[in-house]
């Protein structure tokens, strides 16, 4: 039981983060899978590289949740591609994820940046 639960938590955390990043990227307008990868790479200076093996399952899952919608459109380079667009429901979810993310960062920060003297005793 324990082992399994821990495993599940780890997955959820990662998934949650990826979902949040994808939704955030789609804030700027509909985008296809390749576009999302490129955008993240540009924004983070190659630090964050999303695996396609995670991206596409995530996109399809988000669509099933109703947080994004997809449609087939021509790209500027005349390539037919599947564009994902964030929905109203997705925007709410993004806000929630962002809030949680900030709390986590804050919490982790408060652990990581404690004064050394407090830990000695």
């Amino acid at each position, binding site marked *: 039981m324990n082992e399994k639960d821990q495993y599940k938590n780890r997955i959820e955390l990662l998934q949650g983060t990826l979902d949040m990043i994808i939704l955030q990227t789609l804030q700027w307008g509909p985008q296809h899978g390749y576009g999302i990868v490129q955008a993240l790479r540009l924004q983070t200076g190659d630090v964050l590289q999303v695996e396609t093996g995670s991206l*596409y399952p995530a996109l399809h899952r988000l669509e099933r949740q109703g947080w994004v919608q997809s449609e087939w459109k021509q790209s500027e380079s005349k390539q037919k591609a*599947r564009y994902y667009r964030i929905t109203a429901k997705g925007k709410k979810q993004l806000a929630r994820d962002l809030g949680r993310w900030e709390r986590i960062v804050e919490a982790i920060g408060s652990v990581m940046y404690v004064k050394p003297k407090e830990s000695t005793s």
Partner: protein
Amino acid sequence: MKWFSNFGFQRRNRELQEEIDAHLQMAIADRVARGEAEETARQAAVREFGNILLVQDVTSQMWGGGWLEQIGRDVRYVLRQLRKSPGFTITATAMLAVAICANSTVFSWIDGTMLRPIPGARDTGDLVSLQRGERNFSPTPPFSYLDYRDLREQNHTFAGILAYHHDWITLTGGALPERAYIANVSANYFDVLGIKPMLGRFFLPDEEARAVPNLVLGYALWKTRYGKDPAIVGKSIEVARHPVTVIGVAPEGFVGAMPGIRQDLWVTLDPLGTDVWRMTHRSGGAVWLNVIGRLRPGVSRGQAAQDLDTVMRNIVAAYPDQHLGDNRITLDPMWRSPFGANGYMAATLPILLAFAGVVLLLTCANVATLTLVRFVSRRRELAIRQSLGANRIQLVRQMMLEGVVLSIVAGAVAVVMTSWTAKTFAWFFRATTIPLALNGGMDHTVVIGIAVSSLLVGMLCGALPAWRSSHAPAAEVLKAESASISGGSRHRKLLSGLVVAQIALSLPLLICSGLFLRTLRNLAGANPGFEQDHILTATVGLNIAGYSNDEAQLIRHKILDRVSALPGVKVASFTDWIPMTLSHKGEDAYPEGYVPHPHESLQVYHAEVAPRYFESLHIPVLEGREFTLEDGEKAPRVLIVDETAARRYWPGQDPLGKRLRVWGSLFTVVGVARNSTHMFVNESPEPMIYMSFFQVGYETIVQVETEGNPVDLAPAVENAIHEIDTRLPVFDVRSMRESTQMASSFAVIQSTLAGIFALIGLVLAVTGIYGVVAYRTQMRTHEIGVRMALGASRVDVLRLVLSQGLWLIGIGLGLGLAFALGLTRIIVRLLYGIGANDPVTVVSVVMLLGAMSLLACYFPAHRAMRRNPVIAIREL
């Protein structure tokens, strides 16, 4: 398996493919734009993307969704697995199909007889059969017309009550006289049953008791004798040389209100006005009607019986002299109505169905064993799938599905087989004077039965192994290599349990079938008290052919003279009843000076027999004399009683000269005959009276004692009768031995089916134990090799393997015996000349099963013993 995937799934797969293609195209285009060569760009893009197939797979799992897709995927997987082991698939399917077919066959017989007692009738569940007096098997018609009419008019609990009298008659007028089964019916007969005419109309209320020569034809007769004449209504046809008008034709399938017995045509109660006496009296020969009622909605059988009892008590109070004896009324639902065939069906078929159920359980245990062994050998595969993320529910679902798929296929096979085996029921009944219309039927009830049982079976076969296998922790299975692949102790226990169950289930089947077979042998070997081997009987349709009484008597005397004179004939006589043919004639008899106990039935069996009847059947007349030709119509009425009647009515006295009142006239006892069998060898003796054929005989059956084989004389006897008058119809010319076999029909059915079931059980149990012991021994090959290398002798190995089998056999036999004690109790009533726990049968069956099982263990043990230890050790 294209047919199982649905369009949504395929469309989404195609779209995902296109999406990934688009991704790659854009990546390549970007790289080319940055100046890379087309080919290198493609390679880099694909490398960067990663494993395309994996991405597709993981993504499509995100859809999850449609349960149909999931099941479709599972079914495809299961079918793939089953295709991989055709041996298992074919064996398991065949076994399940046979077992399901065993059940559905018996069920189709129940469905065709007990569940559809009156084909074509509406709501037969509301119909009840009325019986007066002591409840017994195959009773005679219990009501007079006047009593019936009072019951019909004074009750408060029935929507309708009908009456009928079943008989046979000759259709004359055509080229050849033809026998037809006829019923005199009340006017509401078809109405109460809920039958609508196919042509014309049925009887009107005011026709019921009047002399109106109207007739309703049965569908089959209309088709065969009248060529489906659409204008038959209104035409006149000749029945027993009387013109009768056809007023209607009954719909196809309807054969009358007596379960299992066919009626070809119907007339009102007194169509020719010749039966006025019978219509206006309440006792004796006027008691001739079978009665069926339809309960009002919401009325229970108990309430209705009480209601009728009240009415009947008033009738008895008003006409006490016509209602001596027992007058209580009992009601039976039609599925076990004592009139017709269902009384016998209800005593036999449910027990056979229970046997078939045991066979089905046994088969489940066997298939579960096979499945378990297969799963054990697939443990590594399952463990890998589990550690790759398949959840347990999914695994269990797939295993259950495997059982379900097997049983659905088996069920489909069983449907095909049953559509044939259902019709084999008629084989058990030879042609007799009784127009039996018994057969199994394949209708939606049977198909539903098959579907339900195969689904249950599938669950049962799949669930046990699935439940077990899903408990195995994946990591453990993967770590442990070959040594423990044979399964943990849990698997061993379950396998052993299944083997024990198979032996324990097959033992009672074998014991019961042994008891039935010995019953059959006892019945065949029993002495019925009369000669069966050199007797020929032939029915002459004399009084039903329309002769006057004087003409008929003259013809009878002529027949006796001619047949007696034939070479090869020792003795010729007449009777109007043949013993042991599932029929008997009953009548109320009032001995002079005898005071009956309250509610004592005064009904006796009776037969009308001519001079030398007892001589021809070798029944000794213990006191007094046989009938002579002097005992004719003008002589004083005489009768001969059997020992049972003599002892009951005149205990300790000389019965000769005593008098009995039957049909309102007094008969003097002139002889006492030895008891002989009336209906069944194992019947309890009922009082029997014989009356003189030339005084009160009705039907004419010529009975001949021959020197040689009676059948050889059949043409000569028929010719002799036709020489007197070529128009005399002669039916049912057959040997006594053939007729009396009717009495053991049900014993034959029981022992045949029980025998088949037991054989299936034996084969399953023996192959089951062989399979498990062989499998376990094979898994221990390595261990056995080590033991032998360390000095164990071959006998030690033999003992090792045999001992584990012996344990299972011993426990199985012990449990089986306990189970058998319970099961044989329900068949006690069907046995003859043997106890339910007959030690000889039990011991021989236990020894047979034990020996066969031991043999099944010996083969694998023998093989293990002869292995070369060096090779055995290397083999993991």
